[in-house]
């Protein structure tokens, strides 16, 4: 599969970065190395106020490291970044005042009530006493947990805990809310309800959201996404532009003899196909028009065929040459090396 160039100026119907003046997150050449392992290899991007900006990539691609650098938890080894106009290294404290962070795994106190968790947070951030009750009411309301404010967190489901964490991240009215894999480990139904809440909060609060995900369907909720692989940004644009850039449809075949079919595709059509998700898969421009030719000329009995418009999966594949699932399988080894290097430092 070849890499298609993306028109950076944006195609038809593209929500370009909202024009809100100064970027609220600005990153230049940001890098982080752990010993010999490069987690983030020099990245550049800007996030504009009010935008929902997504970092999409497999596990181990550098998403969490980037978020940790932007949230002042990890010191970069190269480049620079500002959040809400403050440098993440030199003005750490100012950055912290202006951000909310929802971690990948829960950091709630399970033996406390939902409300108590929020009260501790408010106190830690010095939220003025005069507004604290109203604000707690508001954020709990926003995530649909006001009725459950008096329950211990340990009685909450995974989705409820995640919603409570989002409420907590919002409590001190941050300018940027960082969500690190906000729906990881949740079932699909709960995931989509979390997104309902996130979209609702975007409607109500003036906030910029920076999130990481390795779910393609989630990236669709973003105004712009950056695809990150091996610590580098491969491409950055709106989901629509990215999908348009692929320009090909995805065709999946079930045949009597898959290897013969792959061979025939190569020889007769010059198409490189591979087995993905148990089916012979390839990309071709104008997939629907291609199907009749396929039946006429393939020479291998076809049992079923499906044609799909390009998805973000295809975008990912076209820019990285692999599917996100395969990338995760192979990145397991890299992760091991990474963890070993990290432990070796102590």
């Amino acid at each position, binding site marked *: 599969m070849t890499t298609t160039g993306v028109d950076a100026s944006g195609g038809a119907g593209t929500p370009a970065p909202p024009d809100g003046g100064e970027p609220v997150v600005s990153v230049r050449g940001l890098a982080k190395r752990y010993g010999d392992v490069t987690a983030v290899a020099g990245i550049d991007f800007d996030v504009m106020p009010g935008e929902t900006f997504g970092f999409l990539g497999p596990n181990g691609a550098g998403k969490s490291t980037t978020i940790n650098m932007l949230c002042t938890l990890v010191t970069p080894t190269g480049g620079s970044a500002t959040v809400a106009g403050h440098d993440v290294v030199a003005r750490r404290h100012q950055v912290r005042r202006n951000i909310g962070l929802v971690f990948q795994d829960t950091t709630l106190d399970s033996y406390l009530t939902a409300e108590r968790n929020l009260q*501790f947070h408010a106190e830690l951030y010095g939220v003025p006493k005069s507004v604290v009750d109203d604000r707690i009411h508001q954020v709990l309301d926003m995530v649909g947990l006001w009725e459950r404010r008096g329950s211990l967190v340990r009685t909450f489901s995974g989705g409820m805990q995640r919603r409570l964490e989002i409420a907590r991240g919002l409590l001190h009215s941050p300018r940027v809310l960082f969500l690190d894999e906000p729906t990881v480990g949740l079932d699909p139904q709960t995931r989509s309800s979390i997104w309902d809440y996130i979209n609702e909060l975007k409607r109500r609060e003036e906030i910029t959201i920076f999130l990481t995900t390795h779910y393609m369907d989630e990236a669709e909720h973003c105004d712009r996404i950056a695809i990150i692989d091996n610590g580098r940004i491969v491409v950055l644009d709106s989901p629509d532009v990215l999908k348009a850039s692929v320009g090909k449809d995805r065709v999946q075949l079930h045949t009597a003899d898959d290897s013969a079919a792959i061979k025939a595709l190569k020889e007769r059509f010059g198409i490189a196909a591979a087995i993905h998700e148990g089916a012979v898969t390839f990309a071709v421009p104008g997939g629907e028009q291609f199907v009749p030719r396929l039946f006429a000329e393939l020479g291998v009995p076809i049992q079923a065929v499906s044609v799909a418009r390009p998805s973000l999966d295809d975008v990912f594949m076209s820019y990285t040459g692999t599917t996100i699932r395969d990338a995760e399988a192979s990145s397991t080894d890299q992760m091991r090396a990474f963890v070993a290097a990290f432990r070796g430092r102590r």
Partner: protein
Amino acid sequence: MTVQPAVTTPTVVGVRVPEGGMRQDLRAVKVVWQRELIRFKSDRARMLTSLLQPVLYLFVLGTGLSALAAGGAGGVNLRTFMFPGVLSMALLFTAAFSAGSIVWDREFGFLREMLVAPVRRGAIVIGKCLGGATVAAGQGVVFLTLAGLVHVPYTPVLMLTLVAELLLLAFTLTAFGLMAAARIRSMQSFMAVVQMFLLPMFFLSGALYPLSNLPTWLRVLTRIDPLTYAVDPMRRAVFAHLDIPPAAQRVLNPGVTWFGWRVPTMVELALVLVMGLVMLGIAMAEFSRTE
């Protein structure tokens, strides 16, 4: 699940996070301290199990050994003699392990949340230390209520002295735990390291035997052990409120001596305090570093 339309949300309540500073840091100390107390209170099992060990030492080991040395301890009940030492034990593990929860918290828990808050990390460490110390001292106070069972009188002055000394010891032990936790990333290694230090510290402190008539090697080791300087003041306090013949006093409560000089109680307590402060300082410096 669907989004419930908000019933009552007139206008967005804006919050302005104040500039940091002393007040903000003090608030953080308070939050962390408070959280530590709530956490301990909600964990009844831990409260009970950490009392079991000292009870075993005092009443089982103490009673058993009394039979061996019947009337031998200068007419003083062996359990009465052991009480101050076992009292220090009652908070030894509680203090160190409540500090250890910071290891767990850093990877998974609330601590990560606190580390991105606009407060100094030192404040978080101080709060943790005071919280752990309060919990451990509280544990000691519970054990203190058993004093009457081993003929230690409930004189108010004695009780207050012991509580104050317990607080000091609890502080230093928690600081020690925090210093260890600052460098250690896994709970298992933390447990192993702390056990490795705590048990020898306990056995060398003279908690279970008098510091007089010891062979030189053991005498030297007891003087090096920091816990010695916390146990001795408690024993002095208890013995001051007992009616004991001078000969027995000399054997059982000789105090800590440095080359024949009997170290005054205040110096001992000051030593414990200074050690605690130094270890707390190290822990604060360690936690303030970022990766």
